């Protein structure tokens, strides 16, 4: 069993250090690259914090939609194939809601500031 602090606590601590202590001292192209680095760490922190719950919800959603049990990757591949084959589409009960929930969960990790995500989560 691994120890504390959690990985998310560590990545947040590093990101906050870079953001608050280092970034004010850096300018030019290095400053741009530093922002990318901080964004990457923030993304990791969010994924580590949110993924447990969102993966569980997604797995439950897929199981309900497809009527079979499996892994997250396997069931997602199954859903993708059924959509490609035309067996499942937006009219299939639950599909639209499922795709929206899983996509919003992705944006919550990848880019919670993306304008379209903010618009959809204000609803």
């Amino acid at each position, binding site marked *: 069993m691994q120890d504390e602090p959690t990985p998310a606590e560590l990545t947040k601590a590093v990101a906050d250090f870079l953001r608050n202590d280092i970034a004010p001292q850096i300018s030019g192209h290095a400053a741009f*690259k530093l922002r990318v680095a901080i964004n990457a760490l923030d*993304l990791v922190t969010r994924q580590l914090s949110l993924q447990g719950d969102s993966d569980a919800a997604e797995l439950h959603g897929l199981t309900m939609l497809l009527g079979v049990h499996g892994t997250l990757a396997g069931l997602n591949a199954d859903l993708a194939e059924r*959509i490609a084959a035309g067996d499942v589409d937006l009219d299939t009960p639950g599909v*639209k809601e499922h*795709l*929206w929930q899983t996509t919003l969960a992705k*944006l919550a990790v990848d880019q919670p500031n993306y304008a*379209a995500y903010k618009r959809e989560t204000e609803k």
Partner: protein
Amino acid sequence: MAAESTEPLLARSVASWCADATGVSAVTRLSGGASQETWSFDIEHPDGNLGAILRRAPAGYGAASGRACGLDTEAALIRRAQEAGVPAPVVLHALDENDGLGTGFIMKRIAGETIPRKILRDELFAAVRPKLAHQLGGILAGIHGLPQAELPELRRMTAAAEIDELADDIAAFNWPRPVFQLALRWLRDRDPGVADRVTLVHGDFRHGNLMIGPDGVRAVLDWELAHLGDPMEDLGWICVNSWRFGEIDRPVGGFGERNDLFAGYEAASGMRIDPSRVKFWEVMGTLRWGVMCCGMMQRFRDGPDHSMERAMIGRRSSETEIDLLRLLAPRA
């Protein structure tokens, strides 16, 4: 290529085609990777210095590959467009073997802004922003109207071929993408077929490739993805949400309405736009950008460039998934 070798080669090249030039100065590399470089320099001339830009690729690069038309073709296209009145850089010289600089071309440097956030936010552009969509419509009509007989040889694309290419790319990523599959089905079900009008398509007509001044569009840049196809592809691409840079309620580049883009196009071309055909290409473009982000992830993982920037672009594919859902399955 190092600055020490570029400068004397540039001076020699300039001397061969620019009468009365006395040399070059301020030779600065603006950007570059392994396969392409952009340099800025001044041509010294008794009548006043001329600002110039060099685009080049070393020997072995710069030819047409994949979606890129190659630097020689790009130079010929820019020249043809500029001569026909499309705002585009003036091509001063297309490189040949005597120049010893590889493949590429030299064009007159233009002052202006290409950074989308500045064009969308700065006071300097406040007066011109409301006019840009209409102006861009007219410019696209001009690009699409260039007679094919006068164009260099170009790749020909159809919607069906594009869909197949995207489907193959997605399969190769080996990562399940239900939303992309939904988009592929939507596109296949609505493929309008080969366009009645097959024209030059710019291929990357969007914010970032448009040089804009307070007076309007000064130049359309980056013609390397040009091809022959359905001109509506260009109108769809500029409306892709990722190129609105946060201004999601202004579909055209984040500064304008579709009606203004269409009106500008119709006024310049005399042709009516079918909005559903443009929407088809906006969906195609959104999916294509998503696939490009996934491709960037592959290149990050495979190397040789394992940069963080590339890795993070891989995480932008999800923005196209929400954009596709907003287009294809909007919530109330």
